[in-house]
């Protein structure tokens, strides 16, 4: 029997009436990389937060290194040798690397001695695990890949034997992710235990020794990675067979619907976020914009959809020409034939405290069919809402229900329904499946392809490279506000796009 690093037994955790973890048990062997997969909301993160003392389990027991312990706080978890790299880094942006690592481990009243001692220890750790980083750099000047390295160093500095990584590759380019995996390999060789939480099956297959699958708060399977495959894991995650690839016919691009010429965008502090971007989208094709989050995609989207005023350059949509002189807002863009599924449904797409019916007319609420002489025509609104909910399989199909009570996938389907039902000439979609379960992803993808096949133009922006590659006909890659290159989807490969995402021109590489 090998050493067991972690044993979780019958963990239960409820948030109000929502059951996040239900009788979850998990065993992790020492010196292995153990993957935990599941859809968004399957309870992976909750389980790890229980293990790290961030949440308190309602019931269940925890043993670390085969000794039963009670973990009441992050402090207890650190004492037990558990370190965690959170999905959203737990770093103080304005502090240096060194200050972040020291935080919470200082001894004595004055900082000086602690800082000196830990600078030495950090140097040693950096060398031992090949985790080089400038310890005097301020966090907000470091790229995310390095920030993540600081998080790992922070955990190791606290003597972590077991390292939990929550969705570590979400913000990384494929190359950075590969580098992370090499670091994890190194940690495993040094005898550390790694728990990797992800929803990306590719990562599970690439790096883990064992994998556990969670679905709707329950642990549904444990496998040795070498004895399973992506299809089986996907099926376990969703609970039924899924198509991992989207089937679609070749595109038949027609007339130009959207053309963007020399678009620039400077934000409030004067930073140039979008630099001289030009491209076209034709009827009957899906153009995908790939890139690591924060490389100007959001600003580009906001400008094209009329949320930000056009500062310089030219946008042509359905023969309407927009320049920086024309005062055009999001409503005007809609009138020109554009529909927009915003990147962040909760911040931009929906008013979550309003009823579904009110949300489904947002932006179209002045439509005569929704309005009577003085008051709104509620019957028409409810009827239209019910219809859309039915077409887009929104569950529960109740127009009176508050939007915050729907799951992420169903909320997203409502936004997509609202925008697609107007039958626009051009659909602009940002992150169509962020935080959405696999079932809904499949559905939304099919709807987007159906739009294309109905000879509409689609502009898709996503940080999920898999999504871009399977949906798009043409792929543009953004880095640092520029279009780094254009690839036809049918002959694209991931490493080529990955290099472009990292700002490397393919000719140069």
């Amino acid at each position, binding site marked *: 029997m090998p050493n067991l690093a972690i044993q979780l037994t019958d963990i239960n955790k409820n*948030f109000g009436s929502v059951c996040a973890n239900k009788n979850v048990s998990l065993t992790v062997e020492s010196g292995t990389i153990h993957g935990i997969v599941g859809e968004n909301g399957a309870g992976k993160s909750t389980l790890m937060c229980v293990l*790290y003392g*961030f*949440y308190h389990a309602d019931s269940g027991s925890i043993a670390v290194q085969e000794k039963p312990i009670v973990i009441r*706080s*992050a*402090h*207890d978890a*650190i004492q037990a040798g558990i370190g*965690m790299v*959170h999905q959203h*880094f*737990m*770093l*103080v*942006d*304005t*502090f240096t690397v060194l*200050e*972040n690592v*020291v*935080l*919470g*481990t*200082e*001894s*004595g*009243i*004055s*900082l*000086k001695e*602690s800082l000196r001692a830990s600078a030495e220890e950090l140097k040693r750790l950096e060398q031992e695990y090949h985790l080089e980083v400038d310890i005097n750099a301020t966090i907000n000047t470091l790229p995310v890949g390095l920030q993540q390295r600081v998080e790992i160093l*922070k955990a190791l500095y606290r003597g972590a034997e077991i390292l939990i990584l929550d969705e570590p590759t979400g913000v990384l380019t494929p190359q950075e992710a590969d580098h992370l995996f090499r670091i994890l390999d190194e940690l495993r060789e040094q005898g550390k235990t790694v728990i990797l939480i992800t929803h990306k099956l590719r990562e599970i297959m690439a790096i883990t020794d064992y994998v556990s699958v969670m679905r709707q708060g329950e642990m549904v399977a444990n496998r040795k990675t070498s004895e399973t495959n992506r299809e089986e894991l996907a099926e376990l995650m969703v609970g039924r067979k899924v198509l991992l690839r989207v089937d679609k016919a070749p595109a038949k691009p027609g007339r130009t619907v959207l053309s963007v010429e020399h678009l620039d965008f400077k934000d409030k502090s004067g930073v140039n976020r979008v630099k001289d971007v030009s491209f076209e989208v034709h009827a009957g094709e899906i153009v995908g914009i790939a890139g690591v989050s924060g490389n100007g995609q959001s600003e580009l989207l906001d400008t094209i959809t009329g949320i930000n005023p056009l500062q310089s350059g030219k946008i042509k949509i359905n023969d309407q020409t927009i320049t920086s002189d024309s005062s055009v807002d999001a409503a005007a863009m809609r009138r020109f034939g554009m529909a927009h599924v915003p990147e962040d449904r909760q911040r931009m797409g929906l008013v979550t405290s309003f009823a579904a019916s009110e949300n489904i007319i947002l932006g179209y609420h002045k439509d005569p069919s929704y309005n009577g002489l003085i008051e709104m025509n509620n019957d028409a609104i409810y009827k239209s809402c019910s219809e859309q909910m039915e077409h887009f399989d929104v569950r529960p199909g109740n127009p009176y229900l508050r939007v915050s009570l729907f799951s992420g996938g169903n909320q997203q389907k409502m936004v997509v329904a609202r925008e697609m039902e107007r039958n626009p000439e051009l659909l602009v979609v940002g992150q169509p499946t962020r935080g959405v379960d696999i079932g809904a992803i499949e559905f939304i993808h099919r709807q987007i392809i159906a739009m294309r096949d109905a000879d509409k133009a689609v502009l898709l922006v996503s940080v999920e490279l898999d999504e871009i590659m399977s949906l798009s006909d043409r792929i543009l890659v953004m880095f640092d506000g520029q279009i780094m290159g254009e690839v036809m989807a049918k002959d694209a490969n991931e490493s080529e796009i990955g290099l472009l995402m990292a700002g490397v021109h393919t000719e140069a590489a």
Partner: protein
Amino acid sequence: MWNDILLILDGTLRISVPFLLAAMGGIFAERSGVIDFGLEGKMLGGAFVAAAVAHWTQSAWLGLLGSIGIGIIFSMMHGFASVTKQGNQVVSCVAINIFAMGLTVVLANAWFGMGGKTPQLPKEARFLSIELPFAEAMRDIPVIGEIYYELISGHNILVYIAFLAVPITAWVVFKSSFGLHLRATGENPLAVDTTGISVNKTRYQALLFNGILGGMSGAYLSTAHLGFFVKDMSAGKGYLALAAMIVGKWRPYSAMFACLLFSALFAIKDKPEISEMLKGLVPLNLIESFLEMSPYILTVVILAGFVGRAVAPKAIGQPFSKEK
């Protein structure tokens, strides 16, 4: 002329004391992520309690202790409402200010019956000027001796304490372990929590310092500057201290300079010669008003971003809760 400048600078130092103490208190609270414009209330409460206690006990020091006590009580009330109960911090501050405004007058009336005033304190129950060694002897040495005699010597103990509070605050905030926790809590409380430090405990510790300093700033007004308490004695000084802290970008030394700048404007206002000088430029009846409002105008101008942008601690005003 040289003498006038010395006198204005001397006045500046005296006027700056309550600003300094309150601004340092504000730095502690706000660096930890707790908004505090309840400084005004703490100052007012401190002034009243200090005067009352000094009157009863005939001891300025016990009065000071009393003002610290009321400062801590107010800051703990603020902590309970906004840290423990996660209430709106701005509302809590407003409540404390209004509470202090009403309570001081009511109690002063009930206890002393002088229309919201407290009795004039005798010399023994006040903080009096301290003559530093050799001040008299050096008085006649040009420049150095004059500065030493006029500017550095001859203040009461609270003035020295206030100017000592600045380097101490700077050291605690930037060079101590507690300061690291404090700043981290104000920037990213979640990160602090994951390292095993209690966010709420850190905020309460910060509020303790805040209360001590806030209360002391009031004691200066009633037991050192004047010898009694009078209704609405703080007269917006707490707000101005907060403004100085923001202008100083939450840094002790910068805040000190902002406090001195504001105080200099008040000191200038008190000099009749300056009014004479301004006569030609500003209509006569507006001179005093003009000088009086200048610190506030300055604050608005600076906050509007003319002198670099002030970036607040990121998590300011947000109660900490991890289970959403």
